[in-house]
């Protein structure tokens, strides 16, 4: 079927083949991802609107300054950097799996898929720790003249502006929307990571069963790869909106 590549692009619309030179499945994966980008975009922009509508917002450098086994050490951005690094690396291992698929190298695809799945699990584990740490937190906050200890949840935000109280600096409750947006958006992204891991596990099983080898191409790995890279892409923006600015 070498005639397909030999055809000049001007003949792409004359019928008999895909005018976009991609398979139906891959094209539809792209359009699904585009619509998913609008979903995430709507969430993030809604978050931005609410954040712009209040005078004080939680400072990410104080909210996210913890690291596992580091006690109360002040390490702003350290843990989320690790999470970002894990996700970028798992994106690389995924693209290497796709690359081995092009070469019809089943063992190579399996190897890189396993690394990608491990990366996905590592990211999910990090997120589970981060959520637990925030929800179980005991930050001192001044509520109606009494100091209480609050975690960060969808109903409690102890990251408002500091005030002096009995000679001591103490935080006040911040805008209540913070927890809802943070857990909602990172949760929706985490769910994408989880489904990506499930898809990759299915891909690994099918590769092991030589389904793609017998089919003659590894295009399914490419489609799973598109989804996985999209998850990484969304994280880049979640990272920007919640942790950096």
């Amino acid at each position, binding site marked *: *079927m070498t005639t397909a590549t030999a055809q000049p692009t001007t003949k792409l619309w004359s019928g008999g083949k*895909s005018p976009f030179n991609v398979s139906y499945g891959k094209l539809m994966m*792209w359009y699904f991802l585009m619509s998913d980008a609008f979903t995430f975009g709507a969430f993030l922009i809604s978050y931005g609107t609410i954040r*712009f509508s209040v005078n004080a917002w939680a400072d990410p450098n104080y909210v996210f300054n913890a690291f596992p086994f580091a006690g109360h050490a002040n390490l702003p951005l350290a843990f989320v950097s690790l999470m970002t690094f894990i996700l970028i690396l798992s*994106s690389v291992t995924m693209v290497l799996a796709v690359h081995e698929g092009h070469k019809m190298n089943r063992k190579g695809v399996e190897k890189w898929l396993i690394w990608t799945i491990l990366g996905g699990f590592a990211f999910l584990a990090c997120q589970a720790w981060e959520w637990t740490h925030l929800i179980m937190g005991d930050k001192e906050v001044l509520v109606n003249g009494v100091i209480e200890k609050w975690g960060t949840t969808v109903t409690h935000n102890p990251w408002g502006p500091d005030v002096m109280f009995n000679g001591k600096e103490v935080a006040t409750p911040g805008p209540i929307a913070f927890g809802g947006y943070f857990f909602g958006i990172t949760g929706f992204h985490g769910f994408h990571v989880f489904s990506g891991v499930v898809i990759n596990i299915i891909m690994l099983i099918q590769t092991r069963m030589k389904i793609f080898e017998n089919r003659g191409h590894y295009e399914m790995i490419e489609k799973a790869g598109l989804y996985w890279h999209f998850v990484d892409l969304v994280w880049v923006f979640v990272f920007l909106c919640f942790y950096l600015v």
Partner: protein
Amino acid sequence: MSQVATAEAGHHHHDDGTQVKRIWKTFWILLIITIIELGIGLAIYTIHKGDSPNHLLVLMFKGVVCILTLAKAFYIVGVFMHLGDEIRNMIMTIVVPLLLFVWFIIAFLWDGDAWRNLRNTDAGSRIYIEETNKKTSIPSTDNGYREDGTNTPAQKKD
């Protein structure tokens, strides 16, 4: 199916070594951009901690981080997702609808900012005096916390 797949395989004309090199090169680019972003994030943290934070500088740093994020997105989509290797018409059907985000972001952030102004000035009926001294002591038992989320820190009431 197999016909398209064959055409695809022929489409990726880079030979094996170059392709793998390109992937790792992109990884390093992404890593370095992320490290720069973290550096800027920590710089913002340090500026905020200072006695008189330079808000213009912070805003500039945030703008730089946004541009760096777009660069990262470009590399992920272009290289890892191979969109750069597809034909132009196909790329355009993905990229052109995403231009809606330009309006989307400007309009909604503007709206949020307008709400803040309306709240701060009681819909334009008074002048808003910005808090300059954040850490005032409060003897009052009311710190402005409201269950419905419309918090107004107590020092604003004076």
